[in-house]
């Protein structure tokens, strides 16, 4: 690697087009906004312990282009490092591990700026260093770690509201845990496209009603061509009105009524043609189940509406201002702002375009109403309309991760997992990976603990597991690893951690909540909120 490094003259990419080209394959996942978030991110890695999993994680963040990273690590490169850490070779022996790794990682992407501590061989006082450092977007630390270092990181995280990720890889096991500084809202959750269709068939607005009525006023005498080209939205709106007339003003919202309504619509299709039916009516029938529904508040959004702002950061955040405006909108209108998209359907192009513009216009109007509410609220003048638009478009899918800080009763989780395992054993489904977490946690500060020490440690805190065979087995495996990392397990774990880190940095997609335990023996992982 050294040869490659010294022969390098990596040019910084200029201009949007070169950069776009380099990041093309990922821009298609998180768009320019996600990329911008990555590029302005400043990541700290406290690389403790064997040190591979942290560097592998950082590698997966440097490649897609994080702006800055810093490695804190006072270890000196030894032979042990060479075989397990891809970013160190023989020329690094005796040098600072932090510096060597930072320089080699930097080589991966000239767009990223790397730094390291300590600058000279000496033990670090992490608390002191952190105090003198800039704000970090995210801090990652690897275990085992010195207790005082861990305390310093936690203090910093609390003080600056910084998300923390802890990572522990030993032998065939690993886990990582995300600690977010309070409720963490995500607007751009990337739901599946099909789920985002909202036609408002049971809550139509005047323009849509008018358009639909005009198109269907002579529905029975319409030419076959016109009849066969009515968009299914219009067909459904028309027959929903008819249905209401015959059903005491009620919409078909229950399963049975929906079935009857489907039958009614399908019977209205003309069959005097070679196909024996009409495509647009078929589309209408198959859209009934998904689209004939009352506007409903998703539980995730309800959590957002019910959330009590707990600190100044939240008070002044544009997200919460928009959320409040959104709640007002919902209370006033009985539904959320219209997302405005219209799926493809059989129709004449001109009619489809008109219908599309009716949906778009309504979406704009709704978004404007929300924006006005935001603007008139204290501090809401500077909120970006694009942010309001995004919120309106994704309203049903907005997600509050880590909504409540409380409710993590570890003892209860232990019992729950134990109960699940009893059931799992009976039906042959996978067992809990919590014992792995327990065993790894017991070596958070002492990598060379023996199996007995690990067991004693666990049982000391959780006497209930004293006779749990799997806790014993996990302890033995962790002891066998002796704090050593397997490159392959650490590389894989580094991939998973970086994936979640990217979600947190870009505020796109939903990160796991909050602990992922990996078992390399069964190639399996489990996510638990611990």
């Amino acid at each position: 690697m050294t040869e490659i490094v010294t022969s390098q003259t990596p040019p910084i990419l200029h201009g949007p087009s070169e950069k776009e080209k380099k990041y093309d394959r990922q821009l298609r996942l998180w768009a320019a906004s996600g990329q911008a978030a990555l590029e302005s991110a400043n990541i700290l890695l406290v690389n403790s312990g064997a040190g591979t999993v942290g560097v592998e994680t950082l590698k997966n963040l440097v490649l897609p282009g994080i702006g800055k990273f810093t490695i804190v690590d006072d270890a000196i490169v030894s032979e042990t490092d060479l075989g397990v850490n891809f970013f160190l070779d023989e020329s690094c022996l005796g040098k600072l591990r932090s510096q060597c790794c930072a320089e080699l990682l930097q080589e991966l992407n000239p767009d990223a700026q790397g730094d390291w501590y300590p600058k000279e061989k000496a033990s670090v006082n992490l608390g002191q260093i952190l105090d003198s450092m800039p704000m970090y977007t995210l801090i990652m630390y690897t275990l085992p770690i010195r207790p005082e270092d861990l305390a310093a990181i936690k203090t910093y995280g609390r003080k600056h509201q910084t998300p923390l990720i802890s990572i522990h890889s030993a032998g065939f096991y690993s886990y990582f845990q995300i600690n977010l500084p309070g409720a963490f809202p995500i607007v751009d959750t990337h739901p599946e496209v099909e789920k985002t269709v909202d036609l408002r068939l049971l809550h139509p607005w005047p323009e849509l009603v008018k358009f639909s009525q005009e198109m269907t006023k002579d529905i029975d005498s319409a030419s076959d061509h016109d009849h066969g080209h009515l968009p299914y939205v219009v067909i459904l709106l028309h027959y929903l009105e008819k249905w209401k007339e015959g059903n005491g003003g009620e919409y078909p919202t229950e399963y049975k009524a929906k079935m009857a309504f489907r039958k009614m619509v399908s019977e209205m299709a003309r069959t005097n043609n070679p196909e024996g039916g009409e495509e647009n009516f078929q589309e209408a029938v198959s859209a009934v189940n998904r689209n004939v529904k009352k506007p409903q508040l998703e539980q995730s959004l309800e959590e957002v509406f019910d959330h009590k702002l707990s600190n100044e950061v939240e008070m002044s955040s544009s997200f919460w201002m928009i959320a409040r405006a959104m709640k007002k909108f919902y209370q006033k209108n009985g539904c959320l702002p219209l997302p405005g998209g219209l799926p493809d359907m059989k129709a004449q192009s001109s009619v489809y375009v008109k219908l599309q513009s009716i949906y778009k216009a309504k979406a704009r109007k709704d978004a404007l109403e929300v924006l006005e509410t935001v603007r008139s609220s204290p501090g809401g003048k500077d909120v970006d309309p694009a942010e309001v638009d995004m919120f309106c478009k994704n309203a049903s899918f907005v997600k509050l991760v880590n909504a409540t800080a409380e409710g993590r009763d570890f003892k209860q989780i232990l019992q729950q997992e134990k109960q699940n395992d009893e059931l799992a054993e009976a039906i042959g489904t996978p067992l809990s990976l919590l014992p792995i977490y327990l065993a790894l946690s017991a070596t958070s500060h002492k990598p060379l603990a023996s199996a007995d020490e690990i067991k004693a440690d666990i049982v000391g805190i959780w006497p209930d597991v004293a006779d749990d065979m799997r806790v014993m087995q996990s302890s033995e495996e962790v002891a066998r690893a002796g704090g050593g990392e397997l490159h392959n397990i650490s590389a894989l774990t580094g991939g998973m951690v970086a994936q979640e880190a990217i979600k947190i940095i870009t505020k796109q997609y939903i990160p796991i909540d909050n602990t992922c335990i990996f078992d390399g023996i069964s190639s399996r992982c489990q996510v638990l909120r611990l």
Partner: protein
Amino acid sequence: MPVKSALPPSSQLPACPVQHLPLGLSSVQTNDRTHSRRNMDSFTSVEPDFVLTHAPQAKVLMVGAGGIGCELLKNLVLSGYGEVHIVDLDTIDLSNLNRQFLFRYEHIKKSKALVAKEAAQVFNPNTTIVAHHANIKDAQFNIEWFRGFTIVFNALDNLDARRHVNKMCLAADVPLIESGTTGFNGQVQVIKKGVTACYDCTTKETPKSFPVCTIRSTPSQPIHCIVWGKSYLLNEIFGVSEDESAFDHSEDADNANEIAELKKEADALRKIRDSVGTEEFPQLLFDKVFNADITRLRSMEDMWKSRTAPEPLEYKTLKEEAPVVDEAFLQNDQKVWSLAENLAVLNDSLDRLSKRKAELIKETKGNSEPPAITFDKDDPDTLDFVAAAANIRSYIFGIEKKSRFDIKQMAGNIIPAIATTNAIVAGLCVLESFKVLKGEYEKAKEVFLTPAGLQRLLAPDRPRRPDPNCPVCSVYRLIVYVDLAYATLDDLINGFVRKQLGYGSKDLAVSTEAGVVYDSEEEDNLPKKLRELGIGQDSFITVVDEDDDDTFVNVILSIHQATEPLGDKHIKDLEPDKAPEIPRKPKKVPAVESVVASQTNGKTHALDEDPNDGNNKDLKRARQDDSEIVRLPKRLKTTTQSRGDDVVIVDDESGTGAIVIDD
């Protein structure tokens, strides 16, 4: 079924090649990187002999040095594998650098295989790395060669090569670890002949093609206009001829008149081609495709009864509004260009492509047909051309215009690719390889990355069994030693297949990769030499039993030149008393033999769509019993692209790619 513990006892630990696994913080180390005695012993005390001898002695093949490949090579080297061969025909592109970390800016356009070897070699001098900058389908990589490997890893990005390696590994009976990624999704699968399902046991999604008339006469979506620009217009002007694979001809008969008209249109366009490079060319082309052809279409009144009729455009009026395009303008990928801007870009790209064409003609000096310019999503000239032409056509037909960024994705069938997914998938591949090394196929897993399942992230499943009707793996394979100088088809069929293999007087059909050479109605080829039929060293010949009863499974013969004289028979007899026991086909479903390897990429995992009911039930029951079973993603696409970049559904560079809509 007895309950399995999620954590097996130590003896069940996957084999771990300890010699190079540095496990300890405080371990004993030597300069040659046999590390960490203390932990090595503890981890592998179970079977130190096995791990100490096997991984360093294993010779593995990695096909593909792209996204998964870079990560995999690093993991293999640091897991102590003794010898790693890399095959990749590709060179490094700028868009690889966001994840293929063995490559740097200065390596662009260099061989992936060679650069990857250089970069990784430093990290474990004890691993022998051999790089082949070549196509895995080359004749040099024959069955014999494949047989030399302990394990083969597929880190590929296209269906064609995946299928080829799958077939070769089955023929050579070498275990294959197959993997793929798409964005956050990924999959790893262990393929072992006769034990687990092969790559072709599940039908792969074929790319979507469009009826000719939709593309040429009645487009209604942006993709129709993009396909028109890429597969028709670009090829007619700068390529060889129409890109046929993008078109579905099944409806041609219904539209015979229109098809005939379209042929005339294309002929007229080819004439304009002669004026490429002249000053008049842009207008000639424009008048033809955006005016004359549209006017003709518009005159077909029947066509526009239920559609909005297209509006022909006037070059002169539009040209006046067209701005000057400069570098800065062209760099904005996300903007949707106005009609006049599209014309400006079209003319600008025509200018660039015409100059390039002139260069190509100059280079060939009229000695041969100059090479065609074909669409490449990473070639801005062809991309600009297709984007602008498609947008102008969209405008004419009242279809939404798209930004170049979007058009690139649609035309290039780009599938997102990131470092994180590759890291996870490559790590899983190596974990599976430990089990394969130990021969523990029953412990192997087929693992899916399930980014949507936030409670799980990874979904390991017990490996599927081979599909008894699979045309690729549920066949009987045999090597035949032949004197290629003399052997005829008669020698092979009547002398060998019927007499030696026990077909007797069965009805049978025999085909090569080019097609059927013999069946009950086609016996003319019998006196011909095998060579005359294109059969040579390493050819595959498929023998299909056409009897309804007691039907043999298909037999695939690999032809090898005999090294000893064979006398009059020209084909080496089987050892006495060693007549093969050819398995019989399952009764109800006739096996379909497909010899084609279509030029498409990508694969779909579609367990739920297994057509074989009986088999499917069986699988379901088995899964309920499996202690590791988790919900399988219903449809998981793991597609990867042919060259250059990781993931795509269609092989564009080959020029025969059909078009896929990923919807």
